[in-house]
C-alpha cells in the first residue's frame, strides 16, 4: 500500500463515455464478417472455376455416352480426357511441357541462387538499377517478351544460332526461362533475406572461406526456399503462352506445349479438347502444389 494519492481515491473521472459492450461486440462481428465475405468471394471464384471445368467435362461425357449402346464403356474410353491422351499430338505436348518446364526451372534456379544471394547480402554500385531490371520480365506484357526475344535473335552473336533456336524446341525453354527466372530470383532473394547473416559470420570465424560458408551453412538453410523457387518457376513456365507463340511458334509435334494445345484446340472449335487439356494442366498444377506442401511440412517438423 502506498500513501501516494491514486486515481481511484482522488475520484478522477474518465473522459467521455465508454462504449456499450453490445456495440463493441457487434462492431467486431461485423468486422470479421466483412473480412470473411470479401476473402471468401475470391476463394469461391477459384473453386467454382475448377468445378465448372470438371462439370462441363462430365456433362459432355454423359451426352456422348447416352447415345451409345454400351454407355459405361463409352464413358471410360471416349471421354474428352481419354481422347486427349490418345491423341499423339497431345501426348507430345504433355511430354514437351514436362521436359521444357523442368529444364527452364532448373536453369532458373541455377541463375537465381547466386543472384538472390548477391542481392540479399551485398551492397554494390548499380544495385537499385539491377533490382529494377529484374522486375522487367514480371511487369512486361508477355507478348512483348516474345517479340523482344525474336528481335534479339536477329542480331549477332545470337543470330548465328537463330536457325537452331527460333521456332525450335530450345526457343520454348528460353521463352519460359526468361520470365520464370525473374520469379525464382525474387523468391531466392527473400529466402536469403530471412536467413540470419550472423550464421555466415560465425562460419567465417570458425575458419570457413566465403564459398565454404555459403555451401555448408547458407545453402542447407535455404533448401526450402530453393524448393519454392523451383516450383514457382516450374508453374510459371507451364502457364507461359504469349512469348512461346511468338518466339517458338505453335507447330504441332514440334513446339506445342500444353498451353499452346489449349489455344490450338480452341482455334479449331474443339472446346472439349481444350477443356480436357486444361484439366490435365490443373492436375499437374495441383500435383506440384501437393508435392511442395508435403515436402515443406516434413521440412518444418525436422
Amino acid at each position, binding site marked *: 500500500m502506498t500513501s501516494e494519492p491514486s486515481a481511484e481515491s482522488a475520484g478522477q473521472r474518465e473522459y467521455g463515455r465508454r462504449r456499450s459492450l453490445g456495440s463493441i461486440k457487434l462492431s467486431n462481428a461485423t468486422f470479421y464478417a466483412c473480412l470473411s465475405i470479401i476473402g471468401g468471394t475470391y476463394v469461391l471464384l477459384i473453386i467454382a472455376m475448377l468445378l465448372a471445368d470438371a462439370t462441363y467435362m462430365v456433362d459432355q461425357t454423359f451426352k456422348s455416352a447416352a447415345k451409345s449402346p454400351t454407355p459405361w464403356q463409352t464413358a471410360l474410353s471416349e471421354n474428352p480426357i481419354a481422347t486427349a491422351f490418345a491423341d499423339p499430338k497431345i501426348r507430345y505436348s504433355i511430354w514437351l511441357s514436362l521436359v521444357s518446364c523442368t529444364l527452364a526451372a532448373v536453369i532458373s534456379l541455377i541463375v537465381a541462387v547466386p543472384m538472390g544471394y548477391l542481392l540479399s547480402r551485398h551492397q554494390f554500385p548499380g544495385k537499385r538499377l539491377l533490382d529494377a531490371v529484374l522486375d522487367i520480365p514480371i511487369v512486361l506484357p508477355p507478348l512483348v517478351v516474345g517479340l523482344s526475344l525474336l528481335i534479339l535473335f536477329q542480331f549477332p552473336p545470337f543470330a548465328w544460332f537463330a536457325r537452331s533456336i527460333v521456332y525450335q524446341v530450345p526457343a520454348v525453354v528460353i521463352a519460359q526461362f526468361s520470365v520464370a527466372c525473374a520469379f525464382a530470383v525474387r523468391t531466392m532473394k527473400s529466402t536469403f533475406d530471412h536467413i*540470419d547473416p*550472423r*550464421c555466415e*559470420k*560465425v*562460419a*567465417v*570465424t*570458425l*575458419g*570457413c*572461406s566465403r564459398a*565454404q560458408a555459403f555451401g*555448408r*551453412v547458407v545453402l*542447407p*538453410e535455404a*533448401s526450402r526456399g530453393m524448393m519454392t523457387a523451383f516450383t514457382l518457376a516450374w508453374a510459371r513456365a507451364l502457364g507461359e503462352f504469349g512469348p512461346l507463340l511468338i518466339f517458338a511458334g505453335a507447330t504441332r509435334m514440334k513446339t506445342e506445349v500444353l498451353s499452346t494445345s489449349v489455344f490450338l484446340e480452341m482455334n479449331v472449335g474443339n472446346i472439349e479438347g481444350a477443356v480436357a487439356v486444361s484439366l490435365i494442366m490443373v492436375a499437374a498444377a495441383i500435383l506440384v502444389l501437393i508435392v511442395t506442401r508435403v515436402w515443406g511440412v516434413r521440412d518444418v517438423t*525436422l
Partner: protein
Amino acid sequence: MIKVENISIRAGEFALDDISLRVPAGKYGVLMGKTGSGKTTILESILGLRSVTSGRIRLADEDVTHLNPAVRGIGYVPQDGALFSRMSVRDHLAFALHIRHVDRKTTEERVRELADMLHITPLLERTPLGLSGGERQRVALGRALSFRPRVLCLDEPLSALDTDTRVQMCELLNDVRRLTGVTTLHVTHNLDEAERLADCLFRLTDGKIETKTNP
C-alpha cells in the same frame, strides 16, 4: 591477450574513434555500454568482420588488424546463438574441426569433451529447433570453443535468458574460463553479469572507453 590500440571504425553514419582496450592473457574482459553505443561494432572489428580505418588490433602479440577473419582463430558467440538450423548439435561442435581437416578420432573425442564440459551430451543428436535459450547458448559456446581458440568473443550471449538461467550460464562461463584459460571479451549491458564474470571491466560511454581492472 587482446589488445586494441587507438582504432577508428566507420559504419555508415556511425563512427568510433581512438578506442583502446587490453585484456591480459587468460583474463575475462567485460565491455559494457548502452544499446547502440557501438559495443558490437568493436567486437566485430576484433573478429575481423568489420574493417578499421586506423589503429591496431593484436592477439597474443600478433598483429591481426588486417587479417582475414577466417585465420584469426577467435571463437565467436553471437547474440541469440545464430545456430545452423539444419545441423545437429554434434555437427555444430564438429563443424570447425571438419573445416580444419582434423581427423575423425580427435574430432569425436573433442565433441565428447565439449559436450561433457557444457552439459549438452543428451542433446547431441538434436537440431536447434526446440532447444531452450540456455541450451542454444551452450551449443553456440561449444561451437566457438571447439577448435581451442586462444581468444573468445561473446556478444550479449545471455541477454535473451531468464534470470535463473543467466546465473547458471555465468557459473558455466566461469568454469569454462577455469578449464580452458581462454582470453575472453564479453559484451553486455547487464551489470550483474559483469560483476559475476569480469576480471577487467570496460565501460563505453559517448564513444570513450573507461577501464576498471578487478572491479
